[in-house]
């Protein structure tokens, strides 16, 4: 296997582990405490790009599915996929891919990263909210109040932090030849 590909593989595994660690870190801001998983989901898209970002999130979900406690609150297992949170978890795949896709393609510096994380954050809800509605049989209005509105402030902060972190760690990664 070429060393560049191997390096990307190891980096994707590291990002999956960071998402898992993020699920353990709570920051008490606003009515709902922030869990840092989504911050690392967006960061994986920004740093790894669409393809490896998607692979990294697929790996994270796989590890969670086999029962390793990597989901929010130190939980793991298939219940999280089949239950009301399943859509948000599958949303991680889409978010990481779409964040990477925008970040890779658009020109410009800050703006492309900001646009990428905003669309990425919305991508999580684009799967999470309909899934929650389907599973709980709530109306659209109630589902949005229950599963989206309380988290928006936290997501705004996490998106901003993801952009700042991505911009500050990219030079380190380029120096170590982990990313181009």
């Amino acid at each position, binding site marked *: 296997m070429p060393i560049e590909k191997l390096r990307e593989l190891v980096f994707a*595994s590291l990002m999956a582990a960071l998402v898992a660690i993020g699920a353990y870190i709570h920051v008490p801001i606003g009515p709902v405490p922030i869990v840092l998983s989504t911050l690392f989901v967006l960061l994986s898209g920004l740093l790894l790009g669409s393809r490896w970002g998607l692979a990294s999130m697929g790996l994270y979900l*796989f590890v969670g599915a*086999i029962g390793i406690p990597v989901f929010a609150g130190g939980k793991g297992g298939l219940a999280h996929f089949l239950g009301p949170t399943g859509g948000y978890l599958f949303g991680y795949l889409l978010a990481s891919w779409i964040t990477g896709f925008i970040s890779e393609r658009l020109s410009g510096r800050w703006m492309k990263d900001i646009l990428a994380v905003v669309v990425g954050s919305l991508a999580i809800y684009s799967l999470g909210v309909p899934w929650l509605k389907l599973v709980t049989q709530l109306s659209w209005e109630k589902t949005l109040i229950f599963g989206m509105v309380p988290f928006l402030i936290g997501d705004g902060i996490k998106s901003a*932090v993801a952009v700042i972190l991505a911009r500050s760690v990219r030079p380190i990664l380029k120096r170590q030849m982990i990313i181009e």
Partner: protein
Amino acid sequence: MLITLSFLQFKVALFLFNSAMLIGLFIFSRLPLKQFLREFRFWVIFLSILFLFQAFFSQGIRLSFLLWLPISKEGLVLGGITVWRLGLIVCYATLFTAVTRPRELQKAIAWFIKPIPFLSERRVGLMVSLTLRFFSIILDEVEAIRLALKARLGDREKNPIRKGKIVVYPLLRNSFSRVEEVTFAIAARGFRDDLPLQLPKLPFHHVIPLFFLFGIFVVIEWFYL
């Protein structure tokens, strides 16, 4: 998969059958009830909130003996059925995870991804091992950073964003420096992902209950038609 498919429909007969089967499987699994309830605790809070949400905010006829409370009969029924269905899904998934070894689950997922041409099972296996290794290494790293922060009175910092930045930035720096070390270590050991993976075949005595279950679901469906 069969059980999951059965939950796509709101049919009380299917729920009753699945509930009875769950109780049977739980007894058969000999899992300690305490462990099962511990796993289920997180979901109880969520399901309770969901039930109250449905009961209070659904339109319908108010209960005659509780006129002072904005609860409708339709809301209670809808909330009850939704929570029953979700509770069953969560219980089945918890039971399945508890009685299946991670290695078996890994093999099952490898079996599912085997037909996909661009996904190498060996590569997936390596990535899973690396993630688990990194997971424990980073947890140790977080603890080391936390202690270093405490030694420098950083734990007195009131701003959560600044506090988070102090933890996350060194954590990322230290973690990324490991990528290079691990990459060279794997390359030095001559890792190859193009070797075929041998998966065990599904024993025949495991197939019989699946046919039996499928038959029961077909009979229930037929009664509803």
